[in-house]
């Protein structure tokens, strides 16, 4: 697939993880690639509602991403769109799908980030990406699991 998928096991119940993923307060605690702070976090977690997050990373640059909640099934699944403000880093719109599954130690979270454009492209092609793209996926297999 042209998308990125990460799986994590979290020692917390799915409803707790769901709140952390979707609420403004939750998002403010984790959004961003490093220990830099979240500067602004807004979220209206219902279908059609929007979120907006501004964060600073450790090189002192600020970034803002926002999008719309496309699907919400509490506490198992949330789908949202993603756009960078200004769009220069990646001008395309992408799609984030998070599923939460109860497991004995808590929750298994599966996150898939895909480019919206690919979804359209894919429908016209055969399903599944093997061969060349397996190599891309293998590239992440090492660090993708907690």
């Amino acid at each position: 697939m042209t998308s990125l998928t990460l799986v994590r096991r979290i020692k917390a119940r799915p409803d707790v993880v769901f709140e952390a993923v979707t609420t403004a307060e939750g998002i403010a605690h984790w959004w961003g690639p490093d220990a830099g702070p979240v500067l602004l976090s807004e979220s209206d977690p219902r279908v059609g509602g929007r979120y907006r997050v501004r964060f600073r990373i450790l090189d002192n640059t600020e970034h803002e991403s926002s999008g719309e909640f496309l699907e919400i099934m509490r506490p198992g699944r949330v789908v949202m769109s993603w756009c960078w403000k200004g769009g220069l880093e990646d001008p395309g719109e992408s799609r984030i799908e998070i599923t939460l599954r109860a497991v004995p130690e808590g929750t298994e979270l599966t996150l898939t980030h895909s480019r919206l454009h690919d979804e359209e492209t894919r429908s016209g092609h055969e399903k599944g990406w093997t061969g060349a793209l397996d190599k891309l996926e293998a590239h992440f297999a090492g660090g993708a699991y907690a």
Partner: protein
Amino acid sequence: MFDAWLTTRSCGAILSYTVNYQDRLDRTFAALGDPTRRAILARLERKDGASISELAQPFAIKLPAVMKHLDVLDDAGLVTRSKSGRTVTVRLRSQPMREAMEWLRRYEHFWSGSLDRLAAYAERKDAEARRRGR
């Protein structure tokens, strides 16, 4: 990787570059979305520089169909074709593939950092709730 990527923001001249970049990514991903084209690329990766009839040989499709696939790969910049006499030699170009991988790497970096923090936060909240006897 993330740093290199972020240096492209706030620089107006870069916009056309990123739009082209986006365009190229779309073409790369679209070109890779076909099993015959992936097989052609895999073959070129094992042995770079093949003639069109060599490439067509393993497939149960006619030469013109192979040519069409090569056009798509060529448009995406994944292969180059050079003619010498009557023979066309097809070679692999790695740049578009590298860009596609970079796209994935940037977001992998973003999400692996974010999910570490999400897990830590959710685990703390869950422990707090349990202590309160919920």
